[in-house]
């Protein structure tokens, strides 16, 4: 069994009121409001900051080409696109391991007294993402949206399911992930 690393919040959000007063263009306003969540979702899936930022860019560009920023469905679409795009990356990706190792040793990262621990944690994250990529897409998407900090209502909107079903599906998804991780890393 892999040992667990303490969860840390990763997002500092700008107050929406401040954005609304400052930014006139509707797309820019939507971007500034939703980018922290979109990139957080992609980052939670990929555990790779540059890759998550790339996914977030692609998601917003695709949105810009196809939808009005005033659409009431904008947030749900962005969250859904972020998680599915990121999951598609881990399913198809073969180069992530090298990138993440490079990221782990990024000199811009705070100095850490124990580099061996850092490498071990990076390996653990890779293992979990490999397990994640083997789950059904919908199961993995629900799991990652919730663990990226979205509320049950936001998860339901992004996936087109009832809020009342999120708890049950989440519970099953967590069990499925743990089984998959344990299967891959027997004691």
């Amino acid at each position: 069994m892999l040992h667990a690393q303490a969860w840390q919040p990763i997002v500092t959000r700008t107050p929406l009121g401040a954005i609304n007063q400052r930014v006139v263009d509707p797309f820019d306003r939507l971007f500034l409001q939703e980018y922290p969540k979109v990139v957080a979702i992609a980052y939670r899936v990929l555990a790779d900051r540059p890759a998550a930022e790339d996914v977030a860019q692609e998601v917003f560009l695709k949105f810009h080409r196809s939808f009005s920023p005033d659409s009431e469905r904008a947030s749900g679409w962005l969250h859904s696109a972020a998680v599915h795009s990121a999951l598609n990356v881990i399913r198809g990706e073969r180069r992530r391991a090298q990138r993440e190792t490079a990221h782990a040793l990024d000199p811009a990262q705070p100095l850490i007294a124990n580099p061996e621990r850092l490498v071990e944690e990076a390996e653990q994250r890779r293992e979990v993402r490999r397990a994640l990529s083997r789950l059904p897409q919908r199961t993995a998407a629900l799991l990652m949206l919730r663990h990226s900090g979205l509320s049950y209502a936001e998860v339901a909107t992004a996936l087109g399911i009832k809020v009342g079903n999120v708890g049950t599906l989440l519970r099953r998804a967590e069990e499925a992930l743990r089984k998959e991780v344990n299967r891959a890393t027997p004691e």
Partner: protein
Amino acid sequence: MRHLSDGTLRRIYDEPLALAAADQAHFDGCGDCKVRFEAIANDARATTALLGVPAFEPQAASALATARARITRDEAARPPRWYERWLNQASPRWRPMATPAVAVLLAAALLTGVAVTGVAQSLVRIFEPHSVTAVQVSPSDFTGTSAVLDYGAVKWLPDAPKLQQLTDASAAQAQSGLPVLTPASLPRGVSGPVSYGVVSHATGSLTFDAARLQASAARAGVHVSPMPSSINGSTLVVNAGPALIEVWGLSADAGQAQVPTLVIAQTRIPTVDSSGATTTQLEDYLLSQPGVPPEIEAQIKAIKDPSTTLPIPIPKGLATSQPVQVNGVQGLMIKAVLGAGVVWVKDGVIYAVGGQLTPDQVLAIATTLH
């Protein structure tokens, strides 16, 4: 009472306040559910730990700058769409008309729609054109105005209208719900193939917001008249489309500059409903905005019934217009150096026929469409 489900217990871990009162009462008095909850909470904590990632702070502003640069690059690299090629080639001097002052007037005229929850009960129809009239505009009047002003929140139900290009007549008819119109005969110089453009039906709403307008004006460095309280907070609901456009004379070669030889367009009449502001109040206010030349203001104010008349902009010096009888109604014949066109409204549909043709040829096509 039955024990709480695993899903409910899982939600208590994340969102304890979302628990219904009856479930809360059961949970408080049920030892079994508390034991199950602890197990579920432990699993949830273990999963959170498994999925943990190092902290980082997203840089939204710099990411937006990157996205904007990509959008600009993509737009520049995109080949022009057929209607953009047509506009650029056919009427380069008309392009200034796309500047905001006129755009506001046209948007007010062309906004169209469906009831919006909450305001539907109090909506009053303020625009539903049954006739057309010419408004002479001078392109040079608009060259100095480039400010984009934000008058308030715009919503589309479900999405903003989109133009789709098709090559098949039956598909165009099915998509638009409008009949594909065919002239009895085509004049010399007009030949196939025909391209079809379909604009989807759309309902949009604009809720005027004085604070938003002032902020955008300050940002653009322009002065705007204060928004009257009769307009601030009012919602306009616009119903527009669908529209069907048939174009002759475009080649398949996207790189080649082209001018269509004949265009036949039809759209269901747009309607505008208002939750408060009247046509006159809106007209007075919008015409007082920066960039609206006094000449245009006078012409629009001279329209007897602005709620049922669609103003058609005629570029001064480049085209002239005169009333004409078409298919039993009064329409507008427009003559230009490049060609001619006729516009009329009948049975809830606005029709337009134009091309590199003489007024007689245009009228012959308009009156023999079937």
